[in-house]
């Protein structure tokens, strides 16, 4: 990351903070001042939620757990130990972070809505625990002397300024994460956790870091909320509405961006309060109806939040910025070299690999070896067990029996990111590009496994992009690419980790003949550079010109193994693909 963009991205934050500070200082009305404080607090809480859920896509319905732990830390710490919030707010951050780890370890076993529902349980449980402990109502003792030491200020502006400092801190933290490998890892998890693992990202470790940080921020915010509110009750800090508040401000403003929660809080908190103040005493209850309907309308119009809606709108208004459509000029493909030249020592060996799903024996007793520098094609009709075999190779599935030897070492039971580190790269049959990120950012995700620094990762990514011939479109958003370019981008992402073996899962699927030729040329260039390639394909056609050797799978077992010319003529292969009649025809 160079200095200039860093400063450019910080400018709006500092500008916002300065403007907000000016408003906070000139507003003398204590009620408006309280609103100014609450907007910042709920924005911080939204940012904390965003840090976990916005970036990883794992929706948490239970952020009140961290918030409440923080609030009670501040209240009970002052009541029982006479400690100052100046100490207790950081302490609440630590407790929130620890709670994040404790919650994360068991809960990250779950995915998608199961995760969301499990998260819901934590604040509910804590709610009852704190009631059972007898903390139905606690208040922070009023300090008439030495009040500032206990964060009790007569001037409400100080709370706003402190909250602003907290917000700027959290925003900077978020921005820092967003631009580092941390943020890239989280985004990769959000788009496709399996692909992220395959790209060498230790997804569990990053998710735990994210929930710990998120919990820490929520804890500190909860503690600050207690200091402002002065009264803490279980329902006020562990209640459903608290968790919902984090979701509402973030989803309203924009998920996965630092500005989302800020926009959401700055809009929703005052609107709710105005409605309440204006209508509450005259038409009791109507404020909730209007508020709810307004949120529904906005979510319908801008499902990803206001920030993205506005940004997409502005982007459309400025088409001039788009780069002229460059033809990804493919470097001249090397003529297929003599095949026998390339086969070196055995780099990957599979022995007696089997895996069943219930009664279905998806892969049975498969053995083959891959030699350094060769292009091995694994083919077979639909349902032959190709993808299962791949998943066994790079750690997504554990075989029931058999060995996977990489350089002679058994790798069975290792997680995908460990295998990636050991030099096994992989692409997926179903493409999952990170649509809102540029090509360069998409690829850099795959580079971190080899890179010590962000700069090195960028370099590796640029190199990988160049190798597949996408340099001209590196700055474009992935959403704007063609299928061919996307395939090449996925290839580049796998390449960026500098693998020695590349497992390609149906890379040619969905491409027309001309496009397929492009991709084949790119793969051939990689092989020429010394990367060993194992490619799965469903159709044989394009493969014949690409691979050195075929392994044909049928019904989970190896049917034939050999050079393309022999394999394509083998009656057993023709039978597997086309049925017995055609096999007889071919033989005749």
């Amino acid at each position, binding site marked *: 990351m160079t200095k200039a963009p860093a400063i450019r991205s910080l400018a709006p934050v500092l500008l916002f903070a300065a403007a907000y500070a000016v408003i906070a200082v000139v507003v003398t009305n204590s009620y408006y001042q309280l609103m100014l404080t609450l907007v910042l607090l709920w924005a911080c809480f939204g940012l904390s939620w965003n840090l976990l859920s916005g970036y990883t896509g794992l929706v948490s319905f239970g952020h009140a757990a961290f918030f409440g732990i923080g609030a009670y830390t501040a209240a009970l710490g002052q009541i029982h130990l006479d400690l100052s919030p100046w100490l207790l707010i950081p302490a609440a951050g630590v407790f929130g972070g620890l709670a994040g780890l404790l919650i994360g370890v068991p809960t990250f076993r779950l995915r998608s809505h199961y995760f969301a529902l499990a998260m819901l349980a934590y604040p509910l449980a804590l709610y009852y625990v704190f009631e059972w402990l007898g903390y139905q109502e606690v208040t922070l003792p009023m300090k008439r002397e030495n009040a500032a030491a206990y964060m009790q200020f007569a001037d409400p502006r100080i709370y706003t300024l402190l909250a602003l400092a907290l917000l700027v801190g959290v925003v900077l933290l978020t921005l820092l994460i967003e631009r580092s490998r941390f943020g890239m890892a989280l985004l990769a998890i959000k788009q496709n956790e399996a692909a992220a693992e395959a790209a060498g990202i230790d997804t569990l470790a990053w998710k735990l870091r994210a929930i710990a940080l998120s919990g820490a921020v929520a804890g500190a915010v909860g503690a600050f909320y207690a200091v402002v509110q002065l009264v803490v009750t279980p329902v006020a800090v562990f209640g459903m509405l608290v968790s919902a508040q984090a979701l509402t401000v973030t989803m309203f403003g924009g998920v996965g961006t630092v500005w989302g929660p800020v926009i959401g809080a700055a809009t929703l908190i005052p609107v709710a309060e105005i409605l309440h103040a204006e209508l*509450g005493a005259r038409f009791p209850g109507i404020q909730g109806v209007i508020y709810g309907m307004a949120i529904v309308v906005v979510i319908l119009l801008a499902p990803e939040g206001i920030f993205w809606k506005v940004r997409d709108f502005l982007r459309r208004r400025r088409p001039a910025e788009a780069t002229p459509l460059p033809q990804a000029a493919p470097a001249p493909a090397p003529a297929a070299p003599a095949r026998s030249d390339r086969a070196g020592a055995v780099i990957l060996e599979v022995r007696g690999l089997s895996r069943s799903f219930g009664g279905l024996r998806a892969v049975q007793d498969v053995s083959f070896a891959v030699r350094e520098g060769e292009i091995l094609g694994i083919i077979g009709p639909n349902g032959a067990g190709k993808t299962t075999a791949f998943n066994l190779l790079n750690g997504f599935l554990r075989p029931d029996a058999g060995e996977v030897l990489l350089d002679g070492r058994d790798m069975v039971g290792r997680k995908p990111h460990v295998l990636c580190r050991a030099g096994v790269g992989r692409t997926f049959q179903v493409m999952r590009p990170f649509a809102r990120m540029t090509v360069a950012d998409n690829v850099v995700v795959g580079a971190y496994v080899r890179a010590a620094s962000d700069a090195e990762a960028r370099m590796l990514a640029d190199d990988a992009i160049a190798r597949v011939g996408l340099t001209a479109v590196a700055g474009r958003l992935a959403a704007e690419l063609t299928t061919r370019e996307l395939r090449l981008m996925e290839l580049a992402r796998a390449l960026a980790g500098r693998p020695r073996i590349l497992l390609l899962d149906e890379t040619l699927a969905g491409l027309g003949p001309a496009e397929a030729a492009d991709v084949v040329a790119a793969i051939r260039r990689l092989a020429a550079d010394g990367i060993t390639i194992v490619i799965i394909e469903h159709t044989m056609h394009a493969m014949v010109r690409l691979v050195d050797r075929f392994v044909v799978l049928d019904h989970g077992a190896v049917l034939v193994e050999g050079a393309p010319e022999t394999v394509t003529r083998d009656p057993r292969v023709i039978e597997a693909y086309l049925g017995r009649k055609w096999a007889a025809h071919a033989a005749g």
Partner: protein
Amino acid sequence: MAKGSLGIRGLGRRLLPAAMALGLAVPAAQAQQPAEVKVGLLVPLSGIYARPGAVMRMGAEMGVERINAQGGIKSMGGARLKLVVLDCGDTTEKAKNAAQRMVAQEPDLVVASGAYLSSFTLAVTEVTERANLPVLTLSYSDLITDRGFKYVFQTSATAASQAQQSLPEIMKLAEAASGARPKTVAIITDNTAASVASVKPMKEKLLAELGLKLVVDEIFTPPLSDATPLVQKVRAARPDLLFFLPTVISDAKLMLEKMNEFGLGQGKIPTISFGIAIAEPDLLNTVSPDLVQGVMAAVANWGSKGHEDLIAELKAKYKEPWMTQNAISTYGDMWIMKSALEKAGKADRQAVAEAIRTMDEGPSKYFPGGVMKFDEKGRRIGAGLTIVQWQKGTPVVVYPPALAVAEPFWPKK
């Protein structure tokens, strides 16, 4: 209020000047002797506590009307009371916001009453204390007047005090009516702050002092989905008394119906509640009068002997069948405000607060027991309570004798 909204909308749009102008203009607004004195009522008018809040508003409106009809504040040239009503919503955050709005936007408001739920009162008084605005409250929590605050005044006996006062009376009542002193008791309570605060002193010492043995001790989280397990425990233990403390009316209904189903209802096991939930008019919407016949409740205040004209007005004007604590206490608050204003002689928060602190007016007309005088904590001195009993579809006051409108009867086993 209209001005206020303009300001904050501007603020939302970062239109600085509006907010600024308003914020700075506010303190200068008061000048000559007001022909009107603003008094506040900060109660829940939306959300799940809206109903008690609405009843409090009825009491406040009746009080203000009568005071004004009788010539307003005489020491201030007959100034009229003007009631400013604010909705404190259904969360402590909304309650605090409303309180902050009250002190900031209504600078000439001199005294207020609120805020029903003790959690709300705690949050509200954190704000009013710092703004030197005196607040009267009917909330029970001991914590409200244990914080060393100088601007909050509790007209009800605190939860701990209510338990301490009512238990001996209940024992006496039982002994006189049934001829035998109860020996065993079951306590079934929800885990809300008020209920827990009532039960705590019982378990800690009161039961032991009275020689009562606790045979069932159950705490539930409202709302109940099924009262069967609770009632089964009571049936198995067959206590002489059942203390039942619900806060949510549906819980009261479930429990009473299940008691009846198990053959324990209608006084087979004398049932005593604490707090207002079991004597609310709403209970009759879902429960038949037979089912609650004989059930008693210890409540901080109730429309009773001497309040006949008030009860009649409440019935005629607001269609309320009887006068609960929420109506009578808030009505009484208006009269406390009136006499404090008379004494202060000016619309000034500090002066009114001081007038309440030094108030000494002998027996109180609208609050049971004790006198119209507050101790240094802000608790009404000698604050008593009432015991009401459901008799033929109406909760009537049976204790203290001075306020009782009916004789208590002790359900026969």
